């Protein structure tokens, strides 16, 4: 018996969210009185794999072959399913990110394992196995019972605190065979920015809305984000107008994020926007309208013009960093 955590890598490196998963998996294994196994697919160095040991990873299985160079959902499903069966996994945990969303549902069917996605807490109980998951776009949470022998969880990013439990991880290289005929996804073209802080990874996000008034006014907002080590985001009207790129749109149909701090500047806080940010630990709002719904979810607020307030915030952060 085991709990299996799939730790995605980005060009051979792990991120904080990988360690979150391992910390989470380690606790779930404890709850079930069993042990944790981490699975890494692709080319990752021993040194990098060993890092998983800091967060409770004891056994690490590496699968690396020619078929896993490109994300083909069927190939990845096959690899994870084979390891899950071999390790007699009771719970398989993945991140609720784009790769997790692409692969976990297939795995659910393959293993006939009930799945809960967007989980943000440890299981509420192990018998029956009950998970706390996001529903109605953050307007409610459900206690979802999973009835099958194997359970699949996708964990929301930044929803679980890292727990440092250093131990010397043992790395095994698995010799499973992958059916090469499953590879059917061919990448024709790839555009990737490296080194940019991703919105979904950022612990602080500074976001602008219609109150920014035009595409030309974003200098101080970007400066504030830079000074705070934050990522930038925007509301839907802003990306629809083309003031900022669509990748920055946070909200129901855009990105759903849960940073530690979300600073909403000139955003009124429509239901659809809040659906994307309501799980943020702290929300700060700057808006001219004191009755704007954003202030109902904010812990700190400034009623004022975004363009006048931003330079003052930039100055204060710079002062602080001195």
């Amino acid at each position, binding site marked *: 018996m085991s709990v299996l955590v799939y730790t995605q890598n980005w060009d051979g490196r792990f991120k904080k969210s990988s360690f979150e998963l391992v910390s989470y998996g380690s606790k779930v294994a404890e709850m079930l009185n069993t042990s944790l196994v981490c699975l890494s697919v692709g080319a990752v160095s021993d040194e990098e794999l060993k890092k998983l040991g800091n967060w409770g990873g004891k056994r690490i299985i590496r699968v690396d072959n020619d078929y896993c160079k490109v994300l083909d959902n069927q190939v990845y499903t096959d690899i994870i399913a084979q390891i899950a069966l071999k390790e007699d996994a009771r719970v398989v945990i993945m991140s609720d990110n784009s790769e997790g969303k692409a692969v976990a549902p297939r795995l659910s069917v393959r293993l006939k394992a009930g799945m809960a996605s967007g989980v943000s807490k440890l299981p509420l109980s192990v018998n029956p196995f009950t998970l706390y998951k996001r529903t109605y776009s953050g307007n409610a949470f459900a206690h*979802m019972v*999973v009835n099958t022998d194997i359970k699949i969880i996708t964990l929301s990013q930044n929803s679980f605190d890292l727990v440092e439990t250093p131990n010397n991880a043992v790395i095994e290289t698995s010799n499973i065979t992958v059916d090469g005929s499953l590879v059917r996804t061919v990448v024709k073209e*790839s555009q*990737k920015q490296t080194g940019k802080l991703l919105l979904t990874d950022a612990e602080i996000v500074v976001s602008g809305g219609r109150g920014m008034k035009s595409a030309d006014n974003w200098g101080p907002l970007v400066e504030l984000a830079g000074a705070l080590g934050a990522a930038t985001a925007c509301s839907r009207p802003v990306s629809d107008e083309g003031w900022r790129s669509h990748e920055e749109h946070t909200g129901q149909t855009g990105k759903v994020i849960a940073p530690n701090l979300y600073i909403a500047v000139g955003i009124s806080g429509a239901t659809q926007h809040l659906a994307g940010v309501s799980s943020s630990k702290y929300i700060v709002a700057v808006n001219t309208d004191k009755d704007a719904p954003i202030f109902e979810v904010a812990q*700190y607020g*400034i009623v004022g013009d975004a363009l006048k307030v931003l330079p003052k915030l930039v100055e204060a952060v710079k*002062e602080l960093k001195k």
Partner: protein
Amino acid sequence: MKILVCISNVPDTTTKVKFVDSDTKLDTTGIQWVINPWDELSLTRALELKDDPSAGVKSVTVAHVGLPASEPTIRKALAIGADDAFRVNAAPADSYFVAAQLAAVIRKEQYDVILCGIESSDYNGSMTGGMVAEFLGIPSVSAVSDIKIENGSPLLTREIDGGREIVTVPMPFVAIVQKGIAKEPRIASMRGIMTSRTKPVRLYEPEAEEPLTGIKVYEKPSPRAACKFIDPENAGQLITLLQNEAKII
């Protein structure tokens, strides 16, 4: 080429959700039901492809698993422009159940391109599309923000961390689509509404399948502390509070 668009009906996205029966069920009183936003966008893209003769799309069909009460949602999709539809007559118990039902009909009717929205705004599962593909043993591409058909083969843009890839897969396949797939959802014309009444909706009885999960109870997010207001003239004070009080920067 035949395109299938799977649709779910969900409460209008501005609904303030409430629960009844000791918080085990959604209070449906006064709820306006709409096509799930991502499904509506994928329907729009499917119709755009059909309008383009070079794409070679013969038909756009809408698929839905639900009870007769969700018939208006299907009619709405037909009014927007889908050619026909099928409905599996069962309450959508969970994603696994819904995907199993869809896959069973797809096996009979055969489609080349199957579009599913990346999530539904009610259960936020992000599961049905991938599950349908696995039931059928066909490729799936997730987080798709554009679909083109060139010389009879699909070119899919998928969003990845920090960028995008253009990929191709053999047909049939499932594309799990997200924001960007179409600009604005297409709206039904008067003529569309008239003709939708006579478009065929095939009815299937469900296959014997058990859901793998169930929702025991719902809870509302815990209320947040009241907002502390800072004088805009002294806005820098906010940064001090974030550092010393919230200890977040």
